[in-house]
């Protein structure tokens, strides 16, 4: 009874996830995620099964061959989603000092608490794994063989095997994240707290990037005969499926087929047999990987839980040795006034240290990496002679990466770092808030625009040559600066400290903004390519961008922020209740 209560308590704690929804109802977020996963499973099943349903002469060999790619997609998506679930619930994956504070004084044995926590983590993983796998396991095998002469028992076996394999893959991904976390905790001890947030952010970036690059990854993994394909974990689980299902589909009677279709069927059946032979041995890899990840995660979890965690207040951090080089350079160059300095450093601290801000930025970084990878991978490997031979998408890479990252920044600016702590901020804010805002702009430039351009410079030098790459980088700097300037032009609230004002309905505005943004990026890239043809045109282009940066700043000088509106978003018709 006590065990169940504790398990329920720990499951409830997963809802108190500041990363998902600070100070909001966690039930909403969980319901949305669950609904989203179920819908995703159903949507993918239906979309991927259409080809079987509408196949005029469905044959077993072709069906078996096509089904391998589908399974790879299901398994890969399930694994990434489950790993993301584990990363999002990162801090809740093990007992923390708050658990000690609440449960420590109670007359409950440590072992009971630890087991209840592990059970809660297991239930969370199983629940999400079922959400992502159940509908696809039901619909995909059924729709796949609906037109084939298959018995009830083999069809049921296909459903069961699909469910088993997708669940196993999902649990492997979840357990791997838990294992990474717990092994790091075991190795680093109390020092883990220092790197925990960084590792979490890194995993979010890696997983979201993988998700966005999934079509590219799957197209390579789908070439099963290649040796490197067998290095990808989703392929191991496709191998496990093949080992379990054997030739259930491929062994079905083919029936009467037109000659050309029959010939194609022979080729497909042979190709399927070749692939099946090459991936079936990977089943043992899948089983070993799943067992190992579960074992390592559990062992490390129990090892770390041999004592209930204590608050870290007593731990000592490194002694202060004065401001670092970066701080000194910034103080002497871009942020010489105190209020500007406050804006500059607070922006960087919020973006990369505050949980909700970091998640948004990590998502945008991942999207930028994915887009840049796709664009740059399709670029030519040798420097072209003139600008006209450079494809437009090479110019678009930097622009789209900047737009994505600054869109994320635009959102995080509206998220308060901590509303209650903003009171002290408000009391101390005795300078001109415009200077603080100038610091925010410069912080965004140094924290987002500059690193993006520097990271893309090397591939651009390889693709378009040094001179053009440098000119393109300068354009990127000016564009980034101009976008930041324009974004902060109409700002009436101080970033990171004002109460949160929700944006317009993303469902209605989002697609329009996305399409409009893509068109704008394409037009801008074409204009940039045109301007880069000679130095004169480039100078005019840069001058226009510089004017876009300067004019909002000049306009702002006469628009000093007022204190009451700088911190509080005025109530709109929807939020005002007119009580009292």
């Amino acid at each position, binding site marked *: 009874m006590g065990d169940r209560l504790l398990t329920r308590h720990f499951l409830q704690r997963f809802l108190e996830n500041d990363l998902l929804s600070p100070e909001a109802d966690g039930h909403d977020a969980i319901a949305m995620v669950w609904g989203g996963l179920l819908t995703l499973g159903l949507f993918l099943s239906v979309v991927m099964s259409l080809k079987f349903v509408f196949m005029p002469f469905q044959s077993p060999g072709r069906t078996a061959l096509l089904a391998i790619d589908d399974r790879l997609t299901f398994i890969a998506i399930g694994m990434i989603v489950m790993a993301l679930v584990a990363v999002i619930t990162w801090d809740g994956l093990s007992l923390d000092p708050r658990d000690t504070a609440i449960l420590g004084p109670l007359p409950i044995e440590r072992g009971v608490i630890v087991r209840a926590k592990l059970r809660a983590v297991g239930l969370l993983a199983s629940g999400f794994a079922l959400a992502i796998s159940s509908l696809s396991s039901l619909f995909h095998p059924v729709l796949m063989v609906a037109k084939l002469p298959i018995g009830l028992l083999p069809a049921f076996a296909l459903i069961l095997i699909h469910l088993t394999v997708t669940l196993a893959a999902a649990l492997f991904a979840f357990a791997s994240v838990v294992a990474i976390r717990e092994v790091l905790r075991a190795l680093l001890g109390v020092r883990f707290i220092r790197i925990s947030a960084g590792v979490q952010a890194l995993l979010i970036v890696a997983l979201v990037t993988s998700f966005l690059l999934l079509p590219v990854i799957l197209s390579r993994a789908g070439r099963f005969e290649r040796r490197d394909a067998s290095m990808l974990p989703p392929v191991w689980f496709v191998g496990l499926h093949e080992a379990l299902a054997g030739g259930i589909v491929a062994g079905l009677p083919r029936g009467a087929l037109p000659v050309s279709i029959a010939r194609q069927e022979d080729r497909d059946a042979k190709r399927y047999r070749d692939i099946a032979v090459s991936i079936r041995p990977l089943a043992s890899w899948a089983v070993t990987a799943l067992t190992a990840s579960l074992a390592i995660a559990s062992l490390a979890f129990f090892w770390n839980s041999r004592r209930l965690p204590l608050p870290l*207040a007593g731990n*000592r*951090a490194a*002694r202060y040795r004065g401001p670092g080089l970066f701080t000194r350079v910034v103080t002497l160059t871009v942020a010489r006034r*105190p209020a500007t300095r406050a804006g500059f450093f607070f922006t960087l601290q919020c973006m990369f240290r505050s949980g909700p801000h970091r998640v948004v930025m990590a998502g945008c970084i991942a999207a930028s990496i994915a887009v840049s990878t796709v664009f740059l991978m399709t670029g030519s490997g040798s420097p072209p002679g003139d600008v006209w031979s450079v494809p437009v998408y090479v110019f678009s890479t930097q622009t789209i990466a900047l737009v994505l990252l600054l869109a994320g920044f635009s959102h995080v600016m509206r998220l308060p770092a901590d509303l209650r702590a903003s009171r002290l901020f408000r*009391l101390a804010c*005795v300078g001109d808030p415009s200077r603080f805002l100038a610091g925010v702009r410069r912080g965004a430039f140094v924290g987002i625009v500059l690193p993006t351009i520097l990271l893309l410079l090397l591939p651009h030098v390889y693709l378009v040559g040094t001179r053009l790459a440098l000119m393109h980088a300068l354009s990127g700097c000016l564009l980034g600066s101009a976008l930041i300037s324009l974004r902060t032009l109409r700002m009436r609230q101080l970033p990171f400290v004002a109460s949160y004002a929700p944006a317009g309905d993303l469902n209605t505005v989002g697609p329009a903004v996305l399409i409009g943004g893509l068109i704008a990026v394409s037009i801008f890239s074409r204009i940039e390519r045109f301007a880069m043809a000679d130095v004169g045109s480039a100078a005019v282009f840069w001058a226009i961008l510089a004017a876009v940066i300067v004019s909002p700043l000049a306009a702002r000088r006469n628009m000093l922020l*007022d*204190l*009451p509106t700088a911190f509080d978003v005025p109530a709109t018709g929807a939020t005002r209740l007119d009580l009292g």
Partner: protein
Amino acid sequence: MSSMVERNWPPLTASTPSWPRQASCVRMKVSAMTHPLLEARHLTKRFHGITVVDDVSFVVNRGEVVGYLGPNGSGKTTTGRILTGLVEPSSGSVFFDGRNVSDDPIGYRRRLGYVPEEPTLYPFLSAREQLRLLGQLRELPAAPTERKMTALLELFGMADAAEQSISAYSKGMRQKVLIIAALLHDPDLLIFDEPDSGLDVTTSLVLRHLVHTLAARGKAVLYSSHVLEAVEKLCTRVIVLHRGRIVAQDTVQQLRTLMSHESLEDVFAELVLETNPEQTARDIADVVASRG
């Protein structure tokens, strides 16, 4: 709606050649004879029709520590927030150095130090980063502020934890950061809202001596606390609040004499307590011991 541009008081910024104290000391000599440093006039605050602070008026002079007492929900914290400008009063005004603070809220805030009741700080910053941020927002000169910050962190026993994330701090450590933040700019007026909450014995004693020393150096202090013993020892005058209204306002000695009690605790009990604490304690113990 007031602009953030400095209007009346000289700006005490990084570009100001002298440290703020000199400027404020000159002003103090001129105006000390005529105005109390802080004056609350008929402050009233209503939330959704419920009166939380009801016609509260008092003054705090330079060199004075005024105790602000009252049971939970009596309106102490709301008064503190009105005095700091975080909450607008429904009616009434706050005067600082003879001028309405709404005429120049920024100038007022430059000379105000506030320790709030809740130790709310940005959890992802370290103590030093938090203090540096507040110093920069106050436009304090960087180098002297850094030195001052280091010295204060050392004196409050926070040097070892200064680079650690505030999320790992105990309540007492957060409280210390708030106290340092309130003192960093050497304010003329200090408002403490239960500053000893969560502090260890040593720091509580240091704080009491500190408040006494600051008052002796001409600062005006409004000190709200539930520790009556501390208030009795520290405060020159006491204001007792009950259900949003002031029920007593005098020196501790005078209150004791007037109400024929030996301690402030007894005076407070007679003024605001509606239940017999001993009886309530017995009732609680009975409930604890009851079975079924």
